[in-house]
């Protein structure tokens, strides 16, 4: 399974709405901009956001001789995307499935997609520690080059759920690459006063508490928010923003650790 993939990165969070899909897509786009071949797999079956974020709605997946062919963002085929969104007739359609059906769909995504040779495969997950996660972990156990990036927002309610996710990773034996704090402050466009809407510093203190690397904090930036739906990389469109800096650093750390052969 996933033999041609050099490195698998799981983007996880216990909470919904903390920006997992935004982090996943921006991470994939940053890796692509840096010249890597990247795959992005969206296993959030009930709420797939990746097709919209990358402006790939209405695209469809084709069956090739070696399996499903992912949807490519660019002509050079440096970013391939797979999501259940491509298999639905309408963007309003709901996937009302219980666990077993979700499990078999995810197995298919992992086994039957023809990713070709990839430097990185980024997997965007739904919130929680249930069917989707158990399935992915069980299957990725055979894939040694896999690690998890946890996303949180600074408030305690989100941190509490991320602590559960850390326990989950430890129990299932997936190495944690680090933790990213999203939505960590908002700068008023009028007076430039920075307000910590969702309090502050939670991600860093969690990283210290759980002894996992802290990968940086991404502020709330409506300019980045408005890139959603266009499939554009923050590092290209907004090179000066703090968001670009965090993603550039994250990619540097990922590639360094890949070189050293250390997945943590």
């Amino acid at each position, binding site marked *: 399974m996933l033999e041609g993939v050099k490195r698998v990165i799981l983007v996880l969070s216990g909470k919904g709405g903390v920006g997992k899909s935004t982090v996943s897509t921006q991470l994939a786009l940053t890796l692509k901009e840096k010249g890597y071949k990247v795959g992005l797999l969206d296993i959030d079956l009930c709420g797939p956001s990746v097709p919209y974020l990358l402006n790939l709605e209405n695209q469809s997946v084709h069956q090739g001789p070696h399996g499903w062919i992912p949807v490519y963002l660019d002509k050079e085929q440096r970013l391939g995307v797979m999501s259940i969104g491509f298999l639905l007739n309408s963007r309003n359609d709901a996937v009302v499935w219980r666990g077993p059906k979700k499990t078999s769909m995810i197995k298919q995504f992992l086994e039957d997609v023809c990713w070709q040779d990839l430097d990185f495969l980024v997997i965007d997950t739904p919130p929680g520690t249930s069917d989707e996660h158990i399935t992915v972990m069980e299957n990725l156990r055979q894939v040694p080059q896999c690690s998890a990036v946890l996303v949180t927002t600074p408030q305690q309610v989100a941190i*509490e759920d991320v*602590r559960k996710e850390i326990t989950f990773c430890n129990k299932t034996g997936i190495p944690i690459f680090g933790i990213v704090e999203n939505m960590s402050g908002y700068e008023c466009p009028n007076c430039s006063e920075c307000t910590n809407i969702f*309090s502050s510093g939670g991600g860093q203190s969690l990283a210290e508490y759980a002894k996992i690397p802290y990968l940086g904090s991404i502020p709330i930036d409506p300019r980045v928010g408005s890139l959603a739906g266009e499939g554009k990389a923050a590092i290209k469109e907004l090179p000066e923003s703090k968001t670009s800096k965090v993603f550039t650093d994250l990619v540097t750390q990922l590639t360094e650790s890949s070189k050293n052969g250390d997945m943590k």
Partner: protein
Amino acid sequence: MLTIGTLFLTLSNTLFRNFRLSGKPSWHPLCCSFAFNPQLGLVGVLDADICGPSQPRVLGVGGERVHHSGSGWSPVYVSDNLCLMSIGFLLGSPDDAVIWRGPKKNGMIKQFLSEVDWGDLDYLLIDTPPGTSDEHLSVVQYLCGAGLTGAVLVSTPQETALLDVRKEISFCRKLKVPLIGVLENMAGFLCPHCKTRSDIFPATTGGVTAMCTEMDVPYLGSLLLQPALARAADDPTLPARDTTNAALDIRAKIMAFCERNSS
């Protein structure tokens, strides 16, 4: 066992739109505005988010435990007329993860509905996790006989959130759950320094109102992002009631729906 005047179901795909903090800021104040109004009678809150229970913290009863009594588990009382049941009360530590597949989650929800001594509730509010899967199907199936009044959907203004809410609307229609309406949370932000309003999550596609028109669903109203409320969810000593006119108006609309539709 379950005697409830009115049943409520809140659905949301990402917690972000769900309620208190991220998703939650709207839910929490809404819930409190229900609960702290003695005229409403007894309100129960069931946290159906098995993998990420947040209600104990949000309602300020994080360290509590559930007690067994002759008539089942007794919920934790937040105030005289507000009680809460959540899997968070059954976990040993906040680090404990509930690594369960669907059937076990369904069993837990069934237990919460059938083996908790809710007493004579006037309202039961059910907070659900994101998605349209096991928890949601189970809640609807177990409650269809008990008289589910309807679902309130919570969204933030950006399309990423709306996309999931569209799916939730389709879910409700498929399962014939009446839609009370959609409320918009974190619609804007008032800078505490200069009092200028700005949009944190830009509504590039017209926001909740446009989606409601398109999908033909009632629009309940819109709540601003209030950092004080967000922080109050983390710290139970802070006051956490959203008493803005918008919140009161939304509450009135929901109650009017319930009065019209409860038997």
